[in-house]
């Protein structure tokens, strides 16, 4: 700045910004705000169009679309209970298998594993999310399915007294609910584990110390202080995994068998909301009612995942905020790490 006479006009001219100089800021702000508005508008538009395309099928079948058990292309009847049940069964399997393993892994990495391995182990688990779903499908069709078939048959025979899981006999085939659920479990594992790790890291060290000072062993300390504290956040993580499992299309359509019936047995073929869309898409191209039914399946899927996700985010935020006033909001870091870890 050169020394200049500080006359009244001199100061004002230095202090005021000309309209032209203000322009870039205003443009930037307006532009970015518009962009943000568009995002919201887009989501609303999503809904509207999807409902529009589904309306034919939904109007014709009403509640039977979800509760009726009769998905028959040849008669042009689309009651989608097999889809809904299949989605529920495979997602349940994914949660039952995937969440405990994910939480156990997160516990091991954050609490028990030697420090220098933590980063590498975490990264390896995260890499599970990097494998594209079509590759999981390929692997499931040619490796996992065939290799597990004898095990499944043995299991069904040995535990034939348990309903749904046992028995089954000759109806056990390689593509089935179980394989689909297992692959889904593998796919949701990195998500649940990443969130669980974030949440476990927020447990206050002083509570862990207090437990140790009372004479707790490491595991007792985890059970007393870490797990109860982390429970809401981990629940949220599990629900995010659920959302992913519900919506996964390609891997499921390749290994579930695409049978439009409700399988009576864990190792039977089945169907899911997402799989039906991928599988029958081409066939339905020129069939208006069929197409509309597929879009309706998409709508149900969309609404379902929205609800699960909204609930999940609420849990995760509650969990990472913890039970004291936080200095930083680690809820955002958790959600974002999930986003970049490759969450659908």
């Amino acid at each position, binding site marked *: 700045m050169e020394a200049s006479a500080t006359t009244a006009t001199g100061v004002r001219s230095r202090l005021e910004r000309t309209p032209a100089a203000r322009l870039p800021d205003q443009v930037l702000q307006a532009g970015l705000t518009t962009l943000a508005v568009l995002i919201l508008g887009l989501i609303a538009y999503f809904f509207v169009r999807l409902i529009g395309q589904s309306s034919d099928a939904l109007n014709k079948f009403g509640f039977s679309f979800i509760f009726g058990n009769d998905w028959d292309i040849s008669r042009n009847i689309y009651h989608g209970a097999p889809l809904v049940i299949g989605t529920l069964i495979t997602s349940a399997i994914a949660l039952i298998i995937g969440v405990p393993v994910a939480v156990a892994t997160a516990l091991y990495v954050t609490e028990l594993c030697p420090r220098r391995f933590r980063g590498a182990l975490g990264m390896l688990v995260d890499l599970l999310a990097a494998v594209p779903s079509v590759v999981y499908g390929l692997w499931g069709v040619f490796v996992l399915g065939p290799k597990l078939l004898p095990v499944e048959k043995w299991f069904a025979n040995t535990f034939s007294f348990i309903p749904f899981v046992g028995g089954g006999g000759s109806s056990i085939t390689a593509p089935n609910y179980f394989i689909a659920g297992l692959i889904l479990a593998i796919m949701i594992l990195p998500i649940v584990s990443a969130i669980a790790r974030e949440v476990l890291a927020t447990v206050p060290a002083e509570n862990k110390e207090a437990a140790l000072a009372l004479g707790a062993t490491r595991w007792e300390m985890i059970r007393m*202080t870490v797990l109860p504290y982390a429970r809401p956040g981990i629940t949220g993580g599990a629900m995010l995994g659920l959302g992913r499992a519900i919506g996964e299309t390609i891997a499921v359509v390749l290994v579930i068998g695409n049978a439009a019936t409700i399988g009576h047995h864990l190792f039977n073929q089945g169907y899911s909301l997402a799989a039906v869309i991928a599988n029958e898409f081409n066939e339905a191209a020129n069939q208006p009612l069929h197409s509309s039914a597929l879009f309706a399946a998409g709508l149900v899927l969309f609404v379902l995942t929205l609800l699960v996700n909204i609930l999940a985010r609420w849990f995760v935020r509650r969990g990472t905020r913890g039970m004291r006033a936080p200095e930083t909001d680690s809820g955002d870091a958790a959600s974002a790490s999930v986003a970049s870890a490759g969450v659908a």
Partner: protein
Amino acid sequence: MIPPETTSKEPKEMSAAEERSQQAEAAPDLAAMGEQRKGHGVKVRDLHAYYGAVHAVRGVDIDFPANEVTAIIGPSGCGKSTMVRCINRMHEEIPGARSEGSVTLDELDVYGAGVDVTAVRRMIGMVFQKPNPFPTMSIFDNVAAGLRLSGTKSDNLRERVHRALRAVGLWGEVKNRLNSPGIGLSGGQQQRLCIARAVAVEPEVILMDEPASALDPIATLKVEELIDELKSRYTIVIVTHNMQQAARVAKSTVFMLDGEVVEHDETTKLFTRPADERTERYVTGKFG
């Protein structure tokens, strides 16, 4: 508590009696813990402690007599907290930290081979600087936490929790809300809750790492009053940066500097006629 009198008692006198009983419940009542036991002393010999390569405690020898309060004072970073954490083997929980030397509780070296570290911590309890009640647990469960770890059965458990709460003078304030969350209490109450939690398992020794430094003056006074009562049953080691507090509660005081013990003497003597020049400079406020 007060035997029911005839019904012609005036309301005013009743409330005075109630008030007295309330005050009795608010005062620490160590008799609630049962018959008097003789405490056990701790002897620290040639203790060295390291954080990785940093030599934080350099050859410390201290005797902590039974049923007495010994204060440890010194400037920040002199190793007093570290030294105390070596007594109940909490120091080794820090990654990269280790210690050498011996710490004996009544002739038993807590670092001895075959000694179960969790048992050591049950016998040597600790109260931390920042009150840390378990946030997911109620007041009752907080106090019971240590008892449950050692497998105490539930009838016995309830009785011991109540006793511990009476012993620290919290009973009156919390008896009607034992199931409400532990973190719902005020700072001073939380710290007394943590002391109750430590006392409930009936340790031999209680280590206190600046227990009042996060509390307001009135809460501090209550904690100090409690410490005074506690010494009749336990051996107490208290780390403090507050010299007036040491003078108030401790029979003898240790002054540490740069990981070493400079002087260890009766509290009044240490503060009024210190033998070492460095002690004199510290207690007169010339440094630290």
